[in-house]
C-alpha cells in the first residue's frame, strides 16, 4: 500500500538544496504515488532539476516572503491548500529550525498531531507509522497516526541515504499565501553567515569533536588542528557550546547536528545520551577520555583511557611529521 500524495517541505540556500530534503524525498518515493514539494521562495526554477531528479514532480512555491520567518506564511499556505481539497495525505519536513516552525504552525492550523524525530516511516493501511529513537537511541518507539490526515512528520537528518531517481525537472507552481494577520510580523532584517573552511560538519568523512575534558577553550585548537590534518570537520559536545567555547553550529547531538562520518574521534567527551544520539551512526569511532567508566567507551571501536592533553599533542605531532 502507498499513500496517494506526499508533500515534502524543501529547503535550499542560494539554489543549493539541503541534503535532508533529498533524503526525505528518497523516503517519500517509497511511501506515495506522487511526491511534490512546498518551497518558501521565488527561485523554485533554480532547484527544479535537482528536486525532480529525486522524485519531486511539482514544486509549490510561496514566492518572496519579504524576510518573514517561514513558519506562519508557509503553514497558512499549506493549510489553505488542504482546505481547498488540493492538499496531500502527508507532509514531511526535516528537523531544522524552519522545518519545526512550519510543522508546529501547521499542526495547529489543521488541528493535526505532529510525529517528531522520525528516522523511518512506513505505510500501514491508509495511515503512516513513524519510528523515533528515544533515550539516546537505545529504544525505538513506533507511533501510528490514528486520526484523519494530512499527517505531519518531522524527519531527522541522515535517516536514509539520499538516492536520485530518474525523474525529470519538477514543474513549478505558485502557492497562494493567505494574510498572516496578528501571527505575522517576525521579520529577518539581516542575515549573518559564519565563515567556515574545510568540509561541512554534517558531510565530512572525518569528524573530530571536543568536549569538556579538553579543559579550557584554548585547548580546542587541538581539535581543529587534528580535524585539519585528517581533512575533516571539527565538532563539539553541547557542554562546551553552552560554555561558549565554540559556536552552536559546531554542536553534535540530539540538539545540534547529526553526523555519520567514516571516522568520528571524540576527545574529552564522556558520551552523554544527548551527544551519542548525534554520532553513534558513525562507521568508526575513536574515543580519548581519562575516565574509564565514560559511556563513550561503550560504543567506541578504539578507546584510549588517557589524558587528552598528552595524547592529542602526540597524535598531532605524529601526523604532522608524515
Amino acid at each position, binding site marked *: 500500500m502507498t499513500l496517494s500524495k506526499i508533500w515534502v517541505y524543501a529547503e535550499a540556500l542560494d539554489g543549493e538544496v539541503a541534503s535532508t530534503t533529498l533524503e526525505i524525498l528518497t523516503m517519500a518515493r517509497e511511501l506515495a504515488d506522487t511526491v511534490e514539494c512546498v518551497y518558501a521562495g521565488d527561485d523554485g526554477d533554480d532547484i527544479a532539476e535537482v528536486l525532480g531528479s529525486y522524485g519531486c514532480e511539482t514544486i509549490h512555491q510561496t514566492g518572496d516572503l519579504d524576510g518573514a*520567518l517561514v*513558519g*506562519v506564511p508557509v503553514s497558512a499556505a499549506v493549510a489553505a491548500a488542504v482546505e481547498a481539497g488540493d492538499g496531500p495525505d502527508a507532509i514531511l519536513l526535516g528537523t531544522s*529550525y524552519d522545518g*519545526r*516552525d512550519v510543522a*508546529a*504552525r501547521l499542526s*495547529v492550523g489543521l*488541528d*493535526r*498531531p*505532529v510525529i*517528531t524525530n522520525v528516522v523511518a516511516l512506513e505505510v500501514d493501511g491508509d495511515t503512516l507509522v513513524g519510528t523515533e529513537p528515544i533515550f*539516546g537511541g*537505545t*529504544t*525505538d*518507539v*513506533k*507511533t*501510528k*497516526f*490514528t*486520526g484523519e490526515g494530512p499527517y505531519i512528520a*518531522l524527519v531527522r537528518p541522515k535517516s536514509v541515504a539520499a538516492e536520485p531517481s530518474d525523474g525529470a525537472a519538477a514543474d513549478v507552481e505558485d502557492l497562494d499565501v493567505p494574510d498572516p*494577520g*496578528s*501571527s*505575522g*510580523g*517576525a521579520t*529577518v*532584517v*539581516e*542575515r*549573518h*553567515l559564519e565563515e567556515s573552511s574545510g568540509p561541512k560538519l554534517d558531510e565530512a568523512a572525518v569528524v573530530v569533536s571536543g568536549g569538556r575534558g579538553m579543559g579550557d577553550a584554548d585547548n580546542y585548537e587541538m581539535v581543529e588542528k587534528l580535524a585539519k590534518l*585528517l581533512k575533516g570537520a571539527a565538532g563539539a559536545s553541547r557542554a562546551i557550546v553552552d560554555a*561558549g567555547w565554540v559556536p*552552536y553550529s559546531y554542536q553534535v547531538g*540530539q*540538539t545540534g547536528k547529526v553526523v555519520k562520518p567514516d571516522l568520528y574521534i571524540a576527545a574529552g567527551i564522556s558520551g552523554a*545520551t544527548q551527544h551519542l544520539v548525534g554520532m553513534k551512526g558513525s562507521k*568508526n*569511532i575513536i574515543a580519548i577520555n581519562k575516565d574509564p567508566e565514560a559511556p563513550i*567507551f*561503550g*560504543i567506541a571501536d*578504539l*578507546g*584510549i*583511557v*588517557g*589524558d587528552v592533553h*598528552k*595524547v592529542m599533542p602526540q*597524535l598531532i605531532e*605524529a*601526523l604532522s611529521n608524515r
Partner: protein
Amino acid sequence: MPVMNVVVCVKQIPDPADPGALDPETKTLKRDVKLILDESDSYGVEMALQLVDAAGEGEVRLVSMAPNNERSGLSTALAMGAASAVLVSDPALLGSDSLTTAKVLAAAIKDSEPDLVIAGSESSDGYTGTVPEQIAAVLGLPSVTAAKSISVDGDTLKVERQTDTGHDDVECPMPCVISVTAGVVEPRYPSFKGIMAAKSKPVDEKTAADLGFGADQVGWAGAGQEIVDITAAPQREAGEVIEDDGEAYQRIVAFLEQMKVI
C-alpha cells in the same frame, strides 16, 4: 519605565543523568523518579528575569503541566526569582502529545496576558521542539524560535536567531512567543534567600477541566497518535579499550592507517 510581564513555560523532567524508562503498560515515561527543572528551561527563566529587571517593572510567571501535582522543578524556578506559577495538574493529561500540550499551556497562559512568552527550544526528554511555536499559533501571536540573544526596543523584540549557517537578526512585535537556545544567558543558582522565599510564592493549581478541556480532548484520548511498538534499538558493540602508557597515540595512528584515512 515600561512594564514587562513575562510568562515562562517550564517542564519538569526526570534527571537526564538517570532518564528512567518507558512504562510498557502506560507507554509513558516512568515518572516515579524525582523530577527536576529541565536545564533547557533554566535559560528561559534567567532571560525572563533579566528582561523584567531591565524594564524596571513587571514580573515572571511560570506555567507548567504535569499529570501529577509535581512541583520540585517549579520550586527551583521560583527560587531563581519567578514571582508565581500556574501548574496544570491532571492525571487525564498523561500521554498528551505536543499539540495537546500546547493547547493546554496556551489556555493557562492566556489569562495572564503577558507581553512575552518564553520557552526552551526543546525539552531534554521528549525533544519534539514544536511546543513553543504551537503555543504561538494557538494564541495567534508572532514568534521567533531558537533565539540566542534577546533585547527590547520599545514594543519590538530584537532577536538573534540561530541558523544552520550562522544567525539572523529578527525583529518581532510584542506580545509574542520566543524560544531560547541553551547558552543564551548564564542561569543563576538559587540563593538560600531565594529558596526560602519560593516556599511562600503562589502556585495556582488547575485541572484540564478548569481550562475548559474535556477528558476526550487531552491525554492519550486526544493525541491523534498511538504508540504501537517499543523495542530495544540495535546497539553498537564496544571495541577495544586500552590504557594510555604514553604510546597509545600510535594505536590511533595504526587505526587511521588501517582505515586508509592517512
